[in-house]
């Protein structure tokens, strides 16, 4: 499993864009980059996955540079309800052992 490093916490205000960068220097060729969101007292929720370049869905965008040694989750125009812990995971989709680290606690203020 590739080791990931992400900030422990980030603060933002409503309406701003939040960018969370995850470092994964030893990412392997078959590895995907996956982000989860977890609200208090709930299970993590899969939000986006990518392999290279850019992926966008209704919740977020994921930017992956050519060397794939880092990735950035972008949350556009956040609201108070986006306050959560965000986890970056890197691994092969055939490897069932996920490794959730401490994640990044994002706090959105009014």
């Amino acid at each position, binding site marked *: 499993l590739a080791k990931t490093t992400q900030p422990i916490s980030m603060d933002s205000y409503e309406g701003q864009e939040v960018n969370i960068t995850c470092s994964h220097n030893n990412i392997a060729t078959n590895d995907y980059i*996956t982000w989860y969101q977890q609200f208090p*007292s*709930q*299970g*993590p929720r*899969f939000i986006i996955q990518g392999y290279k370049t850019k992926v966008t869905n209704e919740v977020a965008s994921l930017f992956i540079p050519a060397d794939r040694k880092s990735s950035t989750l972008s949350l556009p125009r956040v609201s108070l309800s986006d306050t959560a812990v965000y986890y970056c995971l890197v691994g092969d*989709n055939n490897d*069932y052992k996920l490794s*959730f680290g401490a994640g990044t606690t994002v706090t959105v203020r009014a």
Partner: protein
Amino acid sequence: DVKVTQSSRYLVKRTGEKVFLECVQDMDHENMFWYRQDPGLGLRLIYFSYDVKMKEKGDIPEGYSVSREKKERFSLILESASTNQTSMYLCASSRPWGAYEQYFGPGTRLTVT
């Protein structure tokens, strides 16, 4: 939308009791998982199942067993509950080729007194 449900949101049991945690998914997923989440320790995998009656140990299987008699249902069993099994228990499911795209249930907060 994938839906993963767990039998209880909160559960209080006594030391030594046998505890059953049930999980049901409605998306015909082959893979199902049981985790526990503790402050400072993140999510830790207890057991994994990739098919009916098939199971594999995760990182912390001691004190737990599992049962998967039907594809949609995965049960976690605490044979003799102990206070150090007080935790948040999370069930998840995924397609066979999408282990990193797991769908989690709401969790069961188990307290063993």
